[in-house]
């Protein structure tokens, strides 16, 4: 019960900021995919920069654990391509479709229905996928610092500097 309330409160806060950042809209998501408006990239990267520092500080202090998804090249690449094609058609991702309904953009309802069907189809295909695509190029739960054999406090500043240069370029180019 406590976890359900944590989930709800966390979602409300995140949904509030997503709406304030104006990233829930089809026009913003397609704007990014058409390289016309980088609002959602600015939002996502800012979230990543802040949480990356916080999570690793608390991880080093022993308060939190990382949640690393396994690297699985066949599934990551094919799944990523399918996700991209579908996202370009729909203009919302799973989380933002809920948020888009919240601000009245109800074409996202078609998205929610389609995603439920897509999830059901995946569940049907899972036994076959588990024997095929999901076995192609599996590397387990790896991270960039681990693969490169360096401290995460080398990767994190490098990532931040790269992101800040990207932000500066977005602002200069009016993206």
């Amino acid at each position, binding site marked *: 019960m406590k976890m359900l309330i*944590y989930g709800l409160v966390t979602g409300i806060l995140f949904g509030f900021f997503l709406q304030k950042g104006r990233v829930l809209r089809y026009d913003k998501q397609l704007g990014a995919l058409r390289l016309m408006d980088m609002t959602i990239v600015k*939002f996502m990267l800012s979230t990543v920069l802040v949480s990356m520092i916080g999570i690793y500080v608390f991880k080093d202090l022993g308060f939190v654990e990382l949640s690393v998804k*396994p690297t699985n090249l066949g599934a990551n690449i094919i799944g990523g391509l399918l*996700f991209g094609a579908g996202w370009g058609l729909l203009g919302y991702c799973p989380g933002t479709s809920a948020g888009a309904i919240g*601000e009245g953009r109800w*074409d996202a309802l078609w998205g929610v229905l389609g995603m439920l069907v897509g*999830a059901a189809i995946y569940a049907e295909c899972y036994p076959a996928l588990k024997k095929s695509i999901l076995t192609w190029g599996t590397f387990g739960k790896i991270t960039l610092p681990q693969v490169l054999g360096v401290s995460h406090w080398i990767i994190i500043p490098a990532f931040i500097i790269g992101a800040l240069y990207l932000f500066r370029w977005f602002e200069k180019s009016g993206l």
Partner: protein
Amino acid sequence: MRLKTDDGWSPYLAGALSGVVLIFSVLIAGKYFGASTSFVRTAGMIEQVFGAERVAQMTYFKSKVPKIEWQWMFVLGVLIGSLISAVTSGSFRWQPLPDMWQGRFGESLGKRGIVAFIGAAVAMFGARLAGG
């Protein structure tokens, strides 16, 4: 003319604040953000209405048990949080077609519905496959 109330906040600020929310979520609940698993659980809950025995036997629903848990409430919360922000800032708009879509593909609701539905199904299949 752009509506003054519809400008919102800087995406850098709103994104950074979301990062702070994420840090607290991991600290307090041990939970990272995600949404797509909840669509699997919901699909399973709907399928249970028509055949609970079949759902119970499916491999995928054994690992993604069809029930309401942290992430499901998180996705519901995103809808509510967005609603609160939109209504209190006057940017809530009951809109069937996005502006960019309408400018390119016209006013047909059916066309938008079909493309959105198919796109969504493909996107969700891809997201589950990729592990996201």
